[in-house]
């Protein structure tokens, strides 16, 4: 340790540091300034950006010794020029919806401060250069760039809150935004009980191996640890997994590992002891086995069987059959397509802590998650205790996108805390997060599609193997969802769809924005382009002719009675499409090397779980003290459910939004709102929030004996109902309480995949303008115009945020993202789009109201991602004539295809 003196946020400070500890760690753990985030500890994400002597730097790359004598500013700075700029930036970020999950926000704010200190009126390119070193996985950057430019012009006034009854549809700033922007938000790694021990997981370096453990107690003593836990220490069932019948993943492996990164031992002790420890010093003897990498290897006739319950390594096959005989076709197209693993790359690695109850049974877990109730169930089973004894307190979630639906740290923390009888905390390293948590399923697809001479689709067939990796996770969901969606949002009388989930020795694949649908759309939209080419039809035209709409029947035999806005989406894009085609033609007339191309794709997406009950329940309390509290169990992972649900509830009740207080997502305090996935929170929990607001309103009206349209007003404990009645809440016997519940009406799918799998669907179409350098094979996406039917935009700012973010992820899927186990386990080699990669985005919202949804709303989270990659590939093909069969379209792949 050494003592250093520096100026920190304007004040002279002296403190003792470990000289080699990263400055970010000293700020966070030593000084409690947790506003500075750590996403990678390798300079790759920029979440840790601070100012050192006025210049932005990654605090994770600065040894604390180098802070000596320096002037350091963090997001917590309040005074001076930095404080003043931060105040302007915060206001602009709020107003523009530039913070979603907020984990990147401190880094973004500091990078922007660095810029504005040097350049008070930067142009767009200067803003991109300044923010280029900070990754954001949620927003697609556009709103961040807008916000920085707005902040350079001065301090924006705070937005007005809508009056009673006008919350739905108002583009208000997110209600939980302020904390995300001043560094006070608590993510998983931002708090821990005094004296918590640290947990580190020793993981398999092999994709497939047997192992034996030596004398763990001797090793524990030699290494100075509190405990070394193995499978034998799991008190309950050493198994977890998404499906009730498929708990196939051990918390700690038992003599056999099935993927690189699988948890083997849980090491508990002081942080220093764990940091110094080498895996080689642990008594584990490995016997590596041949690994099944990829689905072809796992399906080979002589492949070893990885799980007793899965002969042929087949987890499940989902099917859809529709129509007995296909109508006669004039043209047919066939294709094959391959996609790789895609990493969620949320900027917050898994982190949290567990606190054991003194009774030896209860457990509280604070961690980032998308599914608190599922975590509770998993944790309780692993501990061997009743679910009620486990409390999950979700931390703020620094990005999820499906990757934080599965339990990760929760069972490990709980086991360690139980065994030690003390609080235990963990923060995954970036490599650990990437190696051990789920990915988007790689897919190997073949598909065929036919149309008649007028371009009406006549038949479609789809076969795909999805690599579900070593454990099932959401593999069954992918296999069930894909056949329903694979044919695309088109009227097709005859379909034969098969989607298999195959076990391999690769990283487990799970849920990722779209559950397999984005992969299928790549193949299908390419076929639609093929058919258009064969028939000499415009690509927009063929989609418009086949677009499924109100009154049409889906591939699973469901009639769309309402809210089917794909035709309207396509119509909204028509002028953009024509202009884009004209722009391409004009440019390409004399540009042999840099070619422009326009592409188009459509999508549909069922909101909520496939053919499964997925209820949500909310509670609203108007206290005798006049406090109005919404108990909302839906986890806001940045998409904005906290705000959207409040807007809905406020209008249902009829009181203004700014009178609401919130108790959020805590299994001890809120009801189960279901998980934040499948684009279900706005639709399902939104409807529950509406029902809750309406229920309380009915109670109040009954109490006041007032008519249905009586206006409510709350002042202190005085609640006026209509013009005449006033209730003094303080005089009531009890608080006024109401609950609402909603479970979307669905039916099971039969053996042909027929039924009503979802209560409603989102629809979207996008067009993309790309520039392709034919010599280098590089692609730059210049513009995306997105039309999306959202039913009702409850909060247009947040809706845009989802669409922008989905587009950025779709762009990554199309052009750069490929997770290779053991090779791209960091954000240096695994590339996601930066602030310089995202195109201009234009959004055309279509609002075809969904009668089941709250105020007509339905899901928006996943749909935006689905059409982006196919539209980009369609555009590349338009620019070059080359049809691609694999993503990501890395420069060398396109170059090879162009040869």
């Amino acid at each position, binding site marked *: 340790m*050494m003592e250093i003196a520096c100026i920190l946020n304007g004040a002279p400070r002296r403190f003792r540091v470990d000289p080699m500890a990263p400055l970010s760690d000293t700020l966070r753990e030593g000084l409690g300034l947790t506003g500075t985030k750590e996403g990678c500890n390798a*300079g790759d994400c920029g979440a840790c950006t601070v100012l050192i002597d006025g210049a932005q730097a990654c605090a994770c790359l600065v040894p604390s010794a180098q802070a000596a004598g320096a002037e350091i500013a963090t997001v917590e700075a309040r005074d001076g020029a930095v404080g003043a700029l931060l105040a302007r930036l915060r206001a602009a970020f709020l107003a523009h919806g530039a913070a979603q999950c907020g984990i990147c926000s401190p880094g973004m704010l500091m990078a922007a401060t660095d810029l504005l200190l040097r350049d008070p009126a930067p142009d767009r390119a200067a803003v991109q250069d300044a923010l280029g070193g900070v990754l954001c996985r949620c927003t697609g950057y556009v709103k961040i760039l807008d916000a920085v430019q707005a902040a350079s012009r001065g301090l924006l006034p705070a937005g007005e809150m809508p009056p009673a009854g006008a919350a739905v549809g108002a583009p208000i700033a997110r209600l939980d935004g302020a904390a995300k922007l001043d560094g006070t938000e608590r993510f998983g790694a931002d708090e821990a009980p005094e004296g918590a021990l640290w947990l580190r997981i020793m993981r398999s370096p092999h994709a497939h191996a047997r192992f034996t453990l030596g004398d763990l107690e001797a090793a524990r003593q030699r290494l100075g640890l509190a405990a070394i836990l193995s499978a034998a220490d799991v008190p309950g069932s050493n198994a977890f997994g998404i499906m009730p019948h498929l708990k196939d993943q051990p918390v700690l492996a038992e003599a056999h590992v099935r993927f690189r990164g699988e948890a083997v031992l849980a090491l508990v002790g002081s942080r220093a002891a764990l940091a110094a*420890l080498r895996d080689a010093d642990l008594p584990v003897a490995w016997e590596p086995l041949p690994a099944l990498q990829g689905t072809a290897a796992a399906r080979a006739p002589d492949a070893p069987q990885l799980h007793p319950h899965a002969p042929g390594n087949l987890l499940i096959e989902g099917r859809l059959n529709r129509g007995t005989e296909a109508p006669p076709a004039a043209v047919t197209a066939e294709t094959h397509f391959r996609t790789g693993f895609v990493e969620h790359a949320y900027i917050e690695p898994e982190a949290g802590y567990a606190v054991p109850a003194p009774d030896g049974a209860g457990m509280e877990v604070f961690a980032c998650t998308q599914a608190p109730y599922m975590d509770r169930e998993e944790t309780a089973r692993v501990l061997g205790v009743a679910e009620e004894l486990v409390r999950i307190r979700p931390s703020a979630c620094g990005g999820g996108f499906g990757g934080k639906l599965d339990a990760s740290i929760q069972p490990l923390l709980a086991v360690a805390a139980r065994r030690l009888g003390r609080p235990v905390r963990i923060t995954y390293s970036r490599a650990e997060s990437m190696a051990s948590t789920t990915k988007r399923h790689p897919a190997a697809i073949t598909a065929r599609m036919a149309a008649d001479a007028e371009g009406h689709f006549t038949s479609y067939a789809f076969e795909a193997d999805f690599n579900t990796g070593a454990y099932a996770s959401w593999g069954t969901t992918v296999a069930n969802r894909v056949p329903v969606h694979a044919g695309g949002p088109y009227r097709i009388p005859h379909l034969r769809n098969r989607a298999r989930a195959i076990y391999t020795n690769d990283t487990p694949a799970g849920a990722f924005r779209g559950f397999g649908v984005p992969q299928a759309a790549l193949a299908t939209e390419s076929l639609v382009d093929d058919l258009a080419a064969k028939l000499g039809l415009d690509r927009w035209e063929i989609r418009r002719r086949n677009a499924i709409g109100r009154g049409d029947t889906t591939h699973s035999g469901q009639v769309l009675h309402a809210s089917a806005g794909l035709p309207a989406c396509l119509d909204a894009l028509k002028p953009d499409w024509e202009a884009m085609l004209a722009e391409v033609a004009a440019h390409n007339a004399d540009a042999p090397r840099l070619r422009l191309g326009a592409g188009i794709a459509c999508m549909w997406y069922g909101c909520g779980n496939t053919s499964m009950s997925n209820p949500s329940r909310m509670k609203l309390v108007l206290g005798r003290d006049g406090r109005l509290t919404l108990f909302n169990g839906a986890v806001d992972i940045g998409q904005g459910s906290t705000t959207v649900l409040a807007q809905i509830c406020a209008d249902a009740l009829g009181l203004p939004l700014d009178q609401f207080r919130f108790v959020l997502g805590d299994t001890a305090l809120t009801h189960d709102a279901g998980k934040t996935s499948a684009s279900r929170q706005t639709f399902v929990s939104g409807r529950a929030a509406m029902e809750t607001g309406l229920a309380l309103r009915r109670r109040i009206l009954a109490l006041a004996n007032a008519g249905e349209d009586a206006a409510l007003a709350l002042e202190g404990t005085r609640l006026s109902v209509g013009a005449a009645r006033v209730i003094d809440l303080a005089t009531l016997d009890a608080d006024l309480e109401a609950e609402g519940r909603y479970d979307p009406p669905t039916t099971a799918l039969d053996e042909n995949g027929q039924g009503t799998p979802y209560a409603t669907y989102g629809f979207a179409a996008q067009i993309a303008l790309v520039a392709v350098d034919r010599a280098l094979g590089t692609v730059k996406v210049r513009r995306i115009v997105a039309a999306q039917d959202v039913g009702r935009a409850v909060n247009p700012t947040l809706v845009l945020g989802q669409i922008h973010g989905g587009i950025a992820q779709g762009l990554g899927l199309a052009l750069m993202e490929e997770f290779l186990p053991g090779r791209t386990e960091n954000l240096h080699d695994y590339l996601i789009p930066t602030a310089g990669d995202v195109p201009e985005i234009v959004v055309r919202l279509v609002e075809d109201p969904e009668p089941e949804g709250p105020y007509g709303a339905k899901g928006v989270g996943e749909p935006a991602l689905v059409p982006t990659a196919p539209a980009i590939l369609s555009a590349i093909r338009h620019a070059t004539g080359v049809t691609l069969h694999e993503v990501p379209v890395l420069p060398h792949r396109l170059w090879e295809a162009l040869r």
Partner: protein
Amino acid sequence: MSAYHRPASLDQALAIRAGADVAVLAGGTDIIPARTARAAWGDPPRQDVLDISAIPGLNRVETTETGWRIGCLVTWSGLLRAGLPPLFDGLCQAAREVGGAQVQNRGTLAGNLVTASPAGDGIPNLLALAAKVELASAEGRRILPLAHFLTGYRATALRRDELLVAVQVPRLDGAQGGFRKLGARRYLVISIAMAAGVVALDGQGRIRTARLALGACSAVAQRLPALEAALRGVTLAEAAQVPQAAHLDGLAPIDDIRASAAYRRDAALVLLRDLLAGMPTP
């Protein structure tokens, strides 16, 4: 626990260097990510650290009689502030494209050379600038041409007791530098391939001297002597037509996660032509 030295003089640093096997740390932008990667898979480094960042006088770009001397603590951003002539345009372009602003503000050119990654953006530029490195030890100084300093994949001639104290760049009057970097995204990206070059024209507008180098296409970035010879006497307007596949025969690009070898070879040629085509005419 390993020791951390942060001496305030070069002599002290060299004495520490002479006495123990220490990991030298300047901006930390290579060394810390490498440590993070090892620690993540249970192999935390234990080597002592010699932090040279507090040594005064090493963060200056000086003009000498024969050219320039870039101190080993000069960062990428520092280079951009140094007011260097067009000869350095390529190196400055690289400085703007290394990582993001955070890395540019802390990472040093010298660290880039010592890391000796085949994809180090500074290296082909400094090869084209005919740079030499100044190495100091407690015993004295020696100067090596950069091409001799770089001995292989992530390997250099730096002795265990030495520090790289400065990079020397000779004058080349009226010369213009340039750089083309190819990566799969806009910021924070390691080069798939890159071309750097310096050209100087004679009185008739013909190329008097051309020095070109390619990075990420061989274990060590390389100059292209045959191409340089072929460019001599050619006008700038014609220069872009000169590079041919045969000029790259000495390279050995590899297949890796970022690109295929065949692509690298072809892309390198395109980058060279683009580089020459983009050289501003005086």
